């Protein structure tokens, strides 16, 4: 940050002589202070998790949900400035709805990521605005089954021209992360916010790439997500937090293709296991100390 104070960081959309856009980098800093958010793309769905830091004891428990639904089959979780995140979600919902009115079908996760990436990037181009102070993780499930066209009647030809190709399969679980610069990539596992480094190293240990053999199941994913959020919280222990977990599966799966909260029973079990594993770690550490 040697260029700070040279004036090139005062305005958005202005490059410094060494080719950096400082406003965007400062936005990344804003994200780094936010609670950890993660997403895991599992074999049969996507899990989103959030370490929701409790900013006041006066806030009602389990109220003020932070992970949002876009359309029916996608979820968005973000770290950083909450109002920016709310606006991001609102725009994502508008994009999804306008896609529906154009194509009479739900927007694919990849297209939403593309649209939102462009939108976020536009906020780095003008000096009348500032970049988004969030990193957003979008997780969703593009339906594999044949989807009816919105408002359509009838089932269409059964064979021949306009008929269905038998055994054709598309769709599946998808996960994307969009940064303040507008950069977005598809991920097997994504993390942002304060505890992202710890979370990322935990995510790397998981079997998430289908090419490496069996990928973890959605239910394992839920438990891992809970554990990773607890691990990521370790460096921030003085602050209280609530664990927020959502998931989305295929139409045949537990959420019937919808993005929704992880049911209470499963969330509590995952949280219990997460706490247990943390205690186990502490024991290990203590044991190690004893050995010393």
């Amino acid at each position: 940050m040697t260029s700070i104070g040279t004036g090139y960081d005062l305005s958005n959309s202005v490059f410094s002589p060494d080719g950096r856009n400082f406003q965007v980098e400062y936005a990344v800093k804003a994200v780094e202070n936010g609670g950890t958010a993660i997403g895991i793309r599992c074999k049969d769905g996507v899990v989103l998790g959030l370490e929701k830091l409790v900013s006041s004891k006066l806030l009602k428990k389990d109220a003020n949900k932070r992970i949002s639904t876009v359309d029916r089959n996608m979820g968005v979780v973000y770290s950083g400035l909450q109002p920016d995140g709310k606006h991001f979600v609102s725009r994502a919902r508008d994009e999804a709805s306008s896609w529906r009115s154009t194509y009479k079908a739900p927007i694919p996760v990849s297209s939403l990521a593309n649209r939102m990436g462009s939108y976020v990037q536009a906020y780095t181009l003008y000096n009348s605005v500032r970049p988004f102070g969030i990193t957003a993780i979008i997780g969703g499930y593009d339906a594999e089954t044949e989807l009816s066209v919105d408002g359509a009647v009838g089932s269409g030809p059964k064979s021949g021209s306009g008929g269905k190709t038998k055994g054709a399969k598309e769709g599946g679980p998808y996960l994307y992360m969009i940064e303040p610069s507008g950069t977005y990539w598809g991920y097997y596992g994504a993390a942002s916010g304060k505890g992202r480094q710890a979370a990322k190293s935990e995510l790397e240990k998981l079997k998430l790439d289908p090419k490496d053999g069996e990928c973890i199941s959605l239910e394992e994913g839920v438990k891992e997500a809970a554990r990773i959020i607890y691990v990521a919280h370790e460096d921030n222990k003085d602050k209280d937090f609530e664990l927020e977990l959502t998931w989305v599966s295929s139409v045949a799966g537990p959420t019937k293709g919808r993005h929704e909260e992880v049911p209470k029973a499963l969330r509590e079990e995952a949280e219990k296991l997460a706490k247990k594993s943390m205690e186990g770690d502490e024991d290990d550490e203590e044991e190690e100390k004893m050995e010393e």
Partner: protein
Amino acid sequence: MNHLPQAWGRPRDDIYGAYDHSYLPQTHANTHPTTHTQSPVVTGTSVLGLKFKDGVVLAADNLASYGSLARFTDVKRLKPFNRKAVVGFGGDVSDMQYLDRLLNSLDVQENYSGAATTEEDDGEAPAATADGEGGEDKHKAILDAKNLHTYLSKVLYKRRSDFNPLWNAILVAGLTTPPPPAPSTSTSSPKDTTTSKPTGPAPSRKPIPYLAYADLLGTTYSSPTLATGFGAHLAVPIMRRAVPDEAAAAKLSREEAVEIVKKCMKVLFYRDARSMNEYSLCVIDGKGVDLQENIKLEGESWAFAEGIKGYGTQTV
């Protein structure tokens, strides 16, 4: 610099001047007066609805007619809204599709506020109050059949008031939770023993069957037996014979109700020239929505037609 995102990427008016619309092809200019539906084009015929003990039966055939031409024979006119309500559409099919999309986007938006999406999360389930907070699930309530009917009838009334009607007659069926019992001072008359309101069983907080009608004029009404279009002439008398009032509907079993509706669908197929022998039938009760979309008319026989002479009353 314009800070409004919608201005980004457009030539600046202060430099290039406002966009000159005269360069657009004439078809884009507003040379014609706006036109509204004067009459329906592709139409669906009757929708039937019948209340029973713990739910409602709804039926409509799968035909969409273009005048007297049986144009589309695979048109599903019963549209489930969520797991609590179903809408049956008669009248213009394109307007039905518009309303279906409207309801679809409404359902998507409903879910954004954290509305329950699975059966387990439903406010009706007793397990939902495990933490002792009854109000916990209140915000999760989703639109029930009554809410949906109110919404749709207002859409229809607004459009008729704009002289741009949605050319439909619809039935909304499902369950609704009745309002809490009203204070006795203002509604009942203890001295009058003949008092009886035909509005169904005594008010309780248990969801009760709901069936209501709305049409292109915004007209609305509710009854244990309802039918749109030709069904109002042919099916309603048959259904009313079995279910004259709410009390009779409260005694009717699901099987009996389905049987009556199936009988009415048969009469309609025999007598309504814009009908077909394949139809959708839907039963909505406490367990959810059971929709069958390709029912074939059973025991079809035109033998009775042999005996009909003249307009039907003629005997020789």
